């Protein structure tokens, strides 16, 4: 308070009000700018394009899968199952903590190596900490007759793709 | 930044305007005569790929009142949307003909070209049509040449003799828009894939369903649509009556 007067740069008197006003403007716009910059940074940090493989997998010709077989596509992280009723695709990612499960052909079950979850080949949980069954993925046959799987779209279980 | 936006602007303008060639007439070119009529000599109604040079040059003739050829008359060629002439303006030769080679634009479809000569009294215009084929249509044209033209094209060429005259039921030439435009794409597909009887037509038209793939059939139809005269208008299709 005493410094105000001492400060020769600042003129005394009624200028004080105007000064407070300008201070508010300054701090206010800086505040807005800071907030804007945060939004700006958020925009910047969220990529507009991704360098990730397409969620849609071309699994090849349906004929190449034997009836009553489970085929794992390790790169895509999915199981392609040809049951008697038809095809379905299963995510191979454990619903517990995201480990990649493995098909055990001897026992006919899917086992997770991390925490011991076990699933039937229809995705149903048998035991273990996994909270949910393995999700079924959308499948269809392309114009060229190839079996297609969309890893990003879940479908209700037991919807078989008949060919 | 500034320069870039100007560049963008210039480009989009040129893209929209479609390179309207400011007919680059050599200063030396000067008409020594003028005719009153302009007739197409050859080179019209040609079919070529988009952006490609037409096989034959476009030749137009300048005549006078009596119908005699006029030499030394100036003829300018114009065309919309990226059509390129080499040369864009020329003088008629001793037989009264002006020749230019045409490069079509990059969009498939019919191209209206115009040749213009300054007549004795007024400007004389001549409209010429050329057809540019897109990729699919070019593929169709190749298939047509291989499988269809021997019957559907009544003209014989040195490489291919026409079978048209030998058929009891005459096939429709592909350019015959009056008939083919009335047929829907589905009808044409049925006809090509399953032969004439599919539409209660002559069995002389054999089925190609096992020989041509579906995309080849589509290509053929695209070609048929492209060369139809009168021009095919999609949308308003009327099912053909027998």
């Amino acid at each position, binding site marked *: 308070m005493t410094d105000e007067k001492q400060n020769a740069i600042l003129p005394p008197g009624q200028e004080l009000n105007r000064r407070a006003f300008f201070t508010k403007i300054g701090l206010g716009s800086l505040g807005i700018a800071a907030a804007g910059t945060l939004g700006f940074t958020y925009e910047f940090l969220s990529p*507009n394009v991704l360098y990730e493989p397409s969620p849609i997998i071309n699994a090849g010709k349906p004929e190449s899968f034997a009836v009553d077989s489970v085929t794992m596509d390790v790169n895509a992280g999915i199981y392609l199952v040809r049951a008697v009723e038809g095809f379905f695709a299963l995510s191979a990612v454990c619903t517990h903590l995201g480990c990649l499960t493995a098909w055990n052909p001897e026992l006919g079950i899917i086992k997770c190596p991390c925490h011991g979850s076990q699933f039937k080949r229809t995705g149903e949980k048998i035991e273990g900490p996994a909270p949910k069954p393995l999700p079924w993925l959308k499948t269809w046959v392309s114009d060229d007759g190839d079996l297609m799987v969309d890893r990003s779209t879940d479908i209700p279980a037991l919807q078989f793709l008949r060919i | 930044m500034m320069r870039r936006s100007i560049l963008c602007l210039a480009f989009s303008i040129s893209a929209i305007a479609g390179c309207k060639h400011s007919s680059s007439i050599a200063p030396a070119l000067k008409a020594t005569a003028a005719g009153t009529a302009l007739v197409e000599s050859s080179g019209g109604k040609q079919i070529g790929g988009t952006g490609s040079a037409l096989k034959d040059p476009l030749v137009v003739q300048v005549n006078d009142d009596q119908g005699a050829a006029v030499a030394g008359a100036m003829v300018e060629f114009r065309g919309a949307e990226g059509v390129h002439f080499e040369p864009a303006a020329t003088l008629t030769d001793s037989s009264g003909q002006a020749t230019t080679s045409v490069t079509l634009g990059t969009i498939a479809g019919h191209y209206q070209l115009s040749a213009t000569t300054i007549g004795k009294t007024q400007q004389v215009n001549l409209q010429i049509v050329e057809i540019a084929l897109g990729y699919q249509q070019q593929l169709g044209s190749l298939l047509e040449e291989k499988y269809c033209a021997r019957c559907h094209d009544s003209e014989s060429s040195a490489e291919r003799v026409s079978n048209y005259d030998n058929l009891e039921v005459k096939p429709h030439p592909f350019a015959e828009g009056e008939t083919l435009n009335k047929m829907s794409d589905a009808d044409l597909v049925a006809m090509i894939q399953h032969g004439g009887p599919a539409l209660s037509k002559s069995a002389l038209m054999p089925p190609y369903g096992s020989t041509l793939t579906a995309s080849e059939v589509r290509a053929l139809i695209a070609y048929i649509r492209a060369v139809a005269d009168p021009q095919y208008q999609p949308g308003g299709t009327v099912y053909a009556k027998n």
Partner: protein
Amino acid sequence: MPVQEYGIVERLRGSRVWRSVFRSGTGTSTLHRSLAVQQNIFLHLFATKVRKRMIRFNVTWFLGTLTLGTFFILVITGVLLMLYYHPSVPQAYADMKDLQFVVSSGLFLRNLHRWSAQAMVFLVFAHMFKVFYRGAYRTPREFNWVIGVVLLIITLLLSYTGYLLPWDQLAFWAITVGSNLSSTVPLIGNKIHFLLLGGNQVNANALLRFYVLHCVVLPLAAIIFIAVHFWRIRKDGGLYVQQSEPKMKAVDDAALATTEVK
């Protein structure tokens, strides 16, 4: 309303938590203000008080401050740009294209980084000449001048190493030409060149080395030397103030002397 807000702010500032962080607060008393400087790790490099003449624009043209400002901007934009940059061939160049075409405000940040870098080099030179012509390098500020020269070199190196990172023709050949200079040093030139590039030619190794230099080594060095530079300003008696009339030395000296004797 404003009154209430003010109250909230005041209450917040008065809270125990706030005071545990900001010891002194920013009161308007000289004591408060002095404490604000003294008790802040960053600000304590400065003296709590400066001579009033010193803050006149004509004295320094604020060139040092401006240089520091460009450095701030460079650090901020640089860190953000690093998030989209892979120091590998040819991905580095593709990243430039991504920044330019698909990253939101990526082009803007790159522009800002690039132009700030150029501005920093320019300002460092300007600062140096200003200091020289003011005679501010003389005793007892000799060492701070030397630190300044070191900072000039660091700035040039920062700019130079950053030049390679876009991995475009400009970068590649500028660095090729520049690094070949080092191999002309008698006796050890080739070794320097080899170490600098991590090989005999500008390639992926060189890019990685320049990246590390540009993003880690040199900025750290710059921060340290900037800190010393600022600290020395205070320790060498604050900013040098030139006499307007050379003949009035006695007066000034007396004034200065008495100011400093405390």
